[in-house]
């Protein structure tokens, strides 16, 4: 991947921190468990690193390490996504035939 320079990377990092705090602070307590597992899924992005390492590996050591990383990271991605989806599917409003909540 192309090197964009350390300062630019740090700038991106700092902006991501602020953005992260901003976005996450809007998530209601009710959804904190799905938030945790959803962010869990997002850090599965490390799978990209695993693919790069394994895909460019040309010796046994790197292949082994890359392979294990690939297994772990894909379990993280797939498991994290499915578990989040399963949880969010359950969050439902009151059925329409019943009264809407007061206020």
């Amino acid at each position, binding site marked *: 991947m*192309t090197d964009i320079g350390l300062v630019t990377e740090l700038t991106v990092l700092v902006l*991501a921190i602020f953005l992260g705090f901003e976005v996450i602070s809007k998530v209601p307590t*009710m959804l904190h*468990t799905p*938030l945790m*597992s*959803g962010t869990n899924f997002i850090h599965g992005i490390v799978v990209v690193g695993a693919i790069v390492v394994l895909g460019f590996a040309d010796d046994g050591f790197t292949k082994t390490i890359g392979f294990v990383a690939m297994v772990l990271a894909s379990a993280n991605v797939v498991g994290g996504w499915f*578990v989040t989806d399963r949880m969010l599917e359950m969050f439902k409003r009151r059925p329409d035939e019943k009264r809407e909540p007061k206020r």
Partner: protein
Amino acid sequence: MISDPDVVGTLYLVSIICFILALRFLSSPKHARRGNWVGGVGMVIAIATTLALDGISNWLLIIIGGAIGSIVGVVGARTVKMTAMPQMVALFNGVGGGAAALVALAEFHVAEGGDLGSEEIVSIVLSALIGSISFSGSMIAFGKLQELISGRPIVFVGQNVVNVAILAAGAGLGIALIAGWDEQWALIALIGLALLFGVMFVLPIGGADMPVVISLLNAFTGLAASATGFVLNSTLLIVAGMLVGASGTLLTLLMAKAMNRSVANVLFGAFGQVQTGAGAARVDDGRTVRATTADDVAVQLSFARKVIIVPGYGLAVAQAQHDVRQLAELLEEKGIDVAYAIHPVAGRMPGHMNVLLAEANVPYDQLKEMDEINPEFPQTDVALVIGANDVVNPAARSDPASPIYGMPILDVDKAASIVVMKRSMAPGFAGIDNELFLDPKTTMLFGNAKDSIVKLIAAVKAQ
């Protein structure tokens, strides 16, 4: 195959946007699920783009590795019980951290012979260190929550000395590596020490504090992924990892605040160890608990105008969520106002109780957060506490000697009457006695929560 870095970068940018939107959509349960799908699309784009990079080979290994991980992930995610969600999150969190550490190790190995800049080597050390701590720490958290290891804090003499020694050795190796010591075994030893530290770090923390630990380790894995991004010069990993880092940090602080303790106190206080004083100071003033029967509670409920249900983890353990919903619906049919009061640390992780009740089809607009519901307790006829203990303990307001003193609680004791459903008089997860049970307004309905509620439903129907 894509060889133009601008195309790759643009596709990665689309992934970043998808991840940010995924988190944005989580601001309301209405479109939260759609958000997760958007995140999924982002991940697919990121993975597909990476696979299409020029020069990627070892396809068989990539496919087999991906397949094994995916199968484990799907099976785990599909079969886990909602009560076991915290350990599942810990597990998936741990494997992510482990993957980050391994990617760092592989990058170091490939570059051996020394074309690593100081930026890369610092990032490799950080990624290996944080990722490994997250991996082993999460595994211990998993073990504690799954009750493979005792949930009590595990402490031994000289623990601090050992921890400091591990940290010092790790820091020494890290600094040596950064200073240009190009030895692979040093990085492997660093990973080993970090793994050991993760274990030592989580062992002394009690089961009740696991929500804080899990969200902190979640932040750690995010940071490790971000550090990996610096190694690989990938803004995608830097941003996605940091979003998780920010999220985990924020949740850790919120959790600690909900328990009115500092993060440092949670992590290093060995909660549960300092209880002897609080227990001994309590005077036996002759007050006793009053036991009641399902029939009496049914009468109480039937003549109430407003009932607040306070669910705790005991409810989930008894798998009584569906029965509680039935009871609530029955009361609503009688024209009684029913709401659920959810404490921020009810359950085993932040927001866990909401998930458990949602699973039982309780509409989410009936679930009230602590600040919203507390002013309503004085106008409440019956507060029905089911398997909750520490989060309704008035000692948090009144007894400075109590370990939970200062923790915000649900003001259940302000209701006109309180019914506590409990298996026995055993203390709660924090291991302390509860004044509420001795309150003259309180009656206790002993027994398994599920059995009690089934009896209660029958009794209310008979009314």
